[in-house]
């Protein structure tokens, strides 16, 4: 028997933290602008979908050769990479981007002439309305991490318990195996779900409407190359991002 790994916040971890501070500081300070001057701008994308991230990365990378494109299948992977190496541009849901206040919105996704989409409660057995959700377990795609997601969903639905899944496709087993009393999902997620399952879903439309993906950027100088990339998105990419078209942010 042997101990392989310990994650306690031990003195070694503190030392590591201190040394990491200087390492990260040095990297950011000395290796920032000059070393990246010739590198293409980076674009990080996260949007919950049944389509696999690696497939979309290949496709979007081919459409936008002047950008270094990374597509993430889970919000936590997106967050981890944004924190470890901040991209020059992002495409994701407004609520995912919101904590990173340095980013400015360049383009807003639109569907049916709106930059918002409706959200639904989906259950088996009895249909549920928002007023009946107290203490119920609500399944959601994790966008923000445990605490932030709980606060976010409670701000929308009240006193509910949250069951998070990392991938859109995990919502169906969560509901079917009684892991949640209902799912709280977007119009696009509902369309995907209905395409896959023949369960007798009970669907309730809520009054809640949340933002479609937005394109955000850091530097003014990258605006054109990013806009040019997005303008060349085909229907497959736009469908993956659940939008019909893009418009300049107001």
């Amino acid at each position, binding site marked *: *028997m*042997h*101990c*392989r*790994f*310990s*994650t*306690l*916040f031990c003195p070694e*971890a*503190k030392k590591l*933290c201190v040394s*990491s*501070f200087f390492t*990260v*500081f040095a990297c*950011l*300070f000395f290796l*920032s*602008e000059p070393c*990246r001057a010739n590198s293409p701008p980076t674009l990080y994308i996260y949007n919950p979908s*049944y*389509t*696999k991230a*690696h*497939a*979309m990365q290949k496709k979007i990378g081919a459409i936008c050769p002047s950008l270094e494109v990374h597509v993430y299948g889970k919000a*936590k992977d997106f967050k*981890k990479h944004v*924190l*470890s190496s*901040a991209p020059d541009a992002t495409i994701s849901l407004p609520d995912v981007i919101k904590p*990173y206040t*340095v980013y400015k919105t360049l383009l807003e996704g639109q569907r049916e002439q709106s930059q918002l989409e409706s959200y639904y409660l989906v259950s088996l057995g009895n249909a549920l309305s928002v007023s009946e959700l107290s203490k119920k377990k609500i399944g959601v795609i994790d966008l923000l991490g*445990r*605490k932030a997601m709980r606060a976010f969903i409670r701000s929308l639905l009240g006193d509910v318990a949250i*069951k*998070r*899944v*990392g*991938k859109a*496709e*995990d919502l*169906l*087993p*969560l509901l*079917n*195996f009684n*892991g949640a009393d209902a799912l709280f999902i977007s119009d696009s997620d509902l369309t995907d779900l209905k*395409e*896959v*399952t*023949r*369960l007798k879903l009970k669907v309730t439309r809520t009054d809640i409407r949340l933002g479609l993906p937005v394109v955000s950027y*850091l530097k003014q100088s990258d605006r054109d190359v990013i806009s040019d990339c997005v303008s060349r998105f085909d229907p*497959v990419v736009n469908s993956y991002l659940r939008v019909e078209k893009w418009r300049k942010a107001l």
Partner: protein
Amino acid sequence: MSFSRAVFFLLLLLVSSSPVYAIDSILIVRPSGHHFEQIVSGISDELAGELRYEDIVFDAKSTKSDLYAVIERYQPRAIVLMGNRQLKLFRGLQEDRPAISLPPSIAVAALFIDRVLAGSKNVTGILYEIPAVTSLVSLRSITAKNIKRVGVLYRHDMIDMIEENRRYCESEGIELVSVGISDSDANSTRKTKQALRKLADKSIDALWISNDSRLLTRDLITRSWMPFMTRFNKPVVVGVETLTKTQLNMGSLAVFPDHTGLGAQTAGKIFDLMDNRWKIEGETFEQPLSVIKHVNVKISQDRGIRFKESKLLQVDKVIR
């Protein structure tokens, strides 16, 4: 990158990685191996900053006393047990020392957890076997064929598992058509092959091969399954990646656990326990939620099976 931007991200990084003191701890006891490490990684990502954990690797020589020693040493709020050997040590420890109170435990990444831990106290877990319905719904969504009747060969001893799968499949409009054989017949390549032929005669749209190691011995694969597959031209869904190898000509679709996702699901159970003041309510075992899908297009095309190209974007790996 401007200096102000660099400083901003530095601060963001520091805030997100700030240590938290006086937090509860979890003990993970597991075997070595890549899949187990992926599960730990999934747990670690979720627990970060809220709970600490000790990751202890047991080997084949580890004993019940070793398990008790690490529990005593770390005094965890809860234990995560991985691997069948660790589950048996835990069960043995409970049986040997019924008077001691062990922390609530979560069993994952072991075969037939519900059977192994039947009668054990203060334990919950996540089953490792992917339910047929998860795999078959995936198959239905990517194939151009209608999937209504799916055959499965099983050993009589596994009837409970088959019945549970049958119920889930029914809710999705899929009929599980089963042929059972006895344990002794499962040792015979001839009788296994006969049972497979009987199954193929039942007008099935696809075949689901459950992960029963007794039915997937090297001998049975080479002398029963593979010869049967040469004349079977329907989709075959398997539960392990290796059975989709082109040279085996068996699985057209493999659906198996996403170990990082299993780690995240385990962390969810840990947080449920924490929210419930470290008490297990209703000692039930959850089904696994997150899976990885591999499609072998070559095997499928040879059997005349077509896939919807756009749906192939929804699988993790396409073997051509």
